[in-house]
C-alpha cells in the first residue's frame, strides 16, 4: 500500500488524497446513519412507564400447602406454589444428569416450600398448565405446556419436550415471612 503510493507519487498523489476523502466521507456517513438509526431502534424498546411497572408484591398468607396462585409481573404470569413435602423431596432427589438444563432444586427456591416461577414456557412463550387442581401436570408432576408438549417437574425444570430451559425463576426477595416482592 505504502509502496504503491510512493511508486505513483506525483501524478497519482491527488488521487490518493481523493481516495482518503471518499473513505473519510463514507465513514462519517456510516457513523451518521448509525446515529440517526439508533433513536429509531431504541424507540421500540420498553419505555420508561413500562419499566416502572417492573415490581409486584405478593401476600403469601392465604396460600396453603399444595396450593398455587398466579400473579402478574411485567404482564407475564408468575406461578407461586407452596410445595408439599413429597414434591420437595422428589425435586431434591432428582439426579442432575437426568436434566436437560441441570440445576439443583436448592438453587431454584430461596425457601424450599415456596417455588416462584415465571409461568412462561421457555419454548415459545405459552402459559403451561398445572396451576389448577384439575389441570394436567405432565409426566413429572409439575407443569405441562399444551402448545408443543413440554413437561416440567415439581421444581419447574424441563424434563421432556422441545423447551430448552427450565422455567425461569424471577428475581424476588422475602420482605417478611409472608410477603415477597418480585422484580
Amino acid at each position, binding site marked *: 500500500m505504502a509502496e504503491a503510493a510512493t511508486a505513483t507519487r506525483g501524478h497519482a498523489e491527488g488521487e490518493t488524497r481523493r481516495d482518503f476523502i471518499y473513505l473519510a466521507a463514507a465513514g462519517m456517513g456510516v457513523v451518521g446513519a448509525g446515529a440517526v438509526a439508533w433513536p429509531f*431502534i431504541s424507540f*421500540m*424498546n*420498553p*419505555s420508561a412507564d*413500562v419499566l416502572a411497572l*417492573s415490581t409486584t408484591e405478593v401476600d403469601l398468607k392465604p396460600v396453603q400447602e399444595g396450593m398455587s396462585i*398466579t400473579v*402478574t409481573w*411485567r*404482564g*407475564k*404470569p408468575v406461578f407461586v406454589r407452596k410445595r408439599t413435602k413429597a414434591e420437595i423431596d422428589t425435586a431434591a432427589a432428582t439426579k442432575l444428569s437426568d436434566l436437560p438444563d441441570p440445576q439443583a432444586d436448592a438453587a431454584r427456591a430461596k425457601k424450599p416450600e415456596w417455588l416462584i416461577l415465571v409461568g412462561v414456557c421457555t*419454548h*415459545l*412463550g*405459552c*402459559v403451561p*398448565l398445572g396451576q389448577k387442581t384439575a389441570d394436567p401436570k405432565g409426566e413429572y408432576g409439575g407443569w405441562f*405446556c*399444551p*402448545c*408443543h*408438549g413440554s413437561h416440567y417437574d415439581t421444581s419447574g425444570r424441563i424434563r421432556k*419436550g*422441545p*423447551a*430448552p430451559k427450565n422455567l425461569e425463576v424471577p428475581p424476588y426477595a422475602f420482605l417478611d415471612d409472608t410477603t415477597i416482592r418480585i422484580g
Partner: protein
Amino acid sequence: MAAPAFKNGLVRWIDHRLPVFSFLHHELHDYPSPKNLSYWWNFGSLAGIVLVIMIVTGVFLAMHYTPHTAYAFDSVERIMRDVNYGWLIRYIHMNGASFFFIIVYIHIFRGMYYGSYKAPRELLWILGVVILLLMMATAFMGYVLPWGQMSFWGATVITNLFSAIPLVGDAIVTWLWGGFSVDNPTLNRFYSLHYLLPFLIVAVVMLHMVALHRFGSGNPLGIDVKGPQDSIPFHPYYTAKDAFGAGVFFIAFAGVVFFSPNLFGEPDNYIPANPLVTPPHIVPEWYFLPYYAILRAIPDKLLGVIAMFGSIFVLFLLPWLDTARVRSAKFRPTYRKFFWVLVVDCIVLGYVGANPPEGWFILVGRIATAYYFFHFLILLPVLGLIERPLPLPQSISAPVLKPAEGKA
C-alpha cells in the same frame, strides 16, 4: 417502440408530455405474450386484484378500528355489529387474506411445475419469494389486530421464535414487544407495520412486473417464443382471459364471504385476549400450518426455527438447485411425478400442523419435513443431471400447425 397514433387530441397532448398512454400501449398491447398460456397463468393478475381489494378494505377498516389492548376487540365487534356494512368489509378483508394465499400458493406451484424460475427469470422468481415473505409478515400482524385469544397467543409464539437466536435472542424479543410481554406497545407497532407493508408489497410487485416484462411470461411448453407466430398481444386476448378467471374467482370468494365467512377462522379468536391463559390448542392460520409443522417436527428449539425459516429460504436458491435445462415438467416425466409428491407433502405438512404434536403426527411430521428438504436439496440437483427429458417441440406454434399442414 413506435409511438402509437392516438385518435383523441387530449390524449395526444398529454402523451407528448407524460407518455403514460404510450407506456400502457407498449406494455399491454405491443407486449407479446405466448399464445399457449393456460388458465394456470391467471393467478398472477388475480393476486394483484386481491392485493388491491385488501388495501382498499384495509384502509376503510382502519377508519373504525382502535389499536389499543382495551378497545381493539370491542372496536372490531363494533365494526361487525354497528358500523354500516362493517361486517361485509371485515369479512372481505379477513377472507381476502386466505384467498390471497390460496392464489399465491397456486401461482408458486405453477412456477415450480413449469420451471418459471429458470434462466433468465431467476430475479423474477426471487422477487416473488420476497413478496411471499412480506405477505406472511403482513398477514401475521393483521391477525393480531382483533386482539382475540388466537391473536395474542399467535403473536406470543411467533415473536418468541426469535428468542431461539443465541445470546441476543431475549433482547430482540423484548425489542420486538416494546415491553416484557405482548402488550399495548406490540399491538400499536403491529398496526403501524400492518398498514405499511402492503405498500411495500405493491412496490415489490412493480419490480416483479418490470422483471416479468423483460422476457415476458413463460409458457406451458417452457420453450422460448421464437417469433411473431408464437405470440399474441396481451390486450385484448389475455386481459379477456384474466377477466374471465377473475369472474370465476369472485363467485368462489363471494360464496365464502356471504355464506361461510368464518370457514378459515378459529372460534377461539372470538374470545378476547387473556395473557394469563393459553388456549389448550393453539394453531396458526391455515396458510402457516406447513411451516408450523416443520417448526414442531424438530425437537430442538433453535434448529426448529432454522428449519422453518429454511423452508422458505430454500425457495430463493431454487433457480440454482434445479439443474435441469428443460423448464416445463411436461417434458420431464420423472420430475413431474416428484412435483406431485411435493404438493402432497405440503398438504400433509399442513394437516400435521393443524393437529396436536402427539402420537403418529410427530412421526409423520418428521418424515414430511425431511422429504420437503430432500426434494429441494438432493432430488432437484441430482434429477436434473440424470433425468432424460422428452423431445421438445420446435416452437410454440409447431405442434399446433403441423397437423393442419399435414392435412393440406
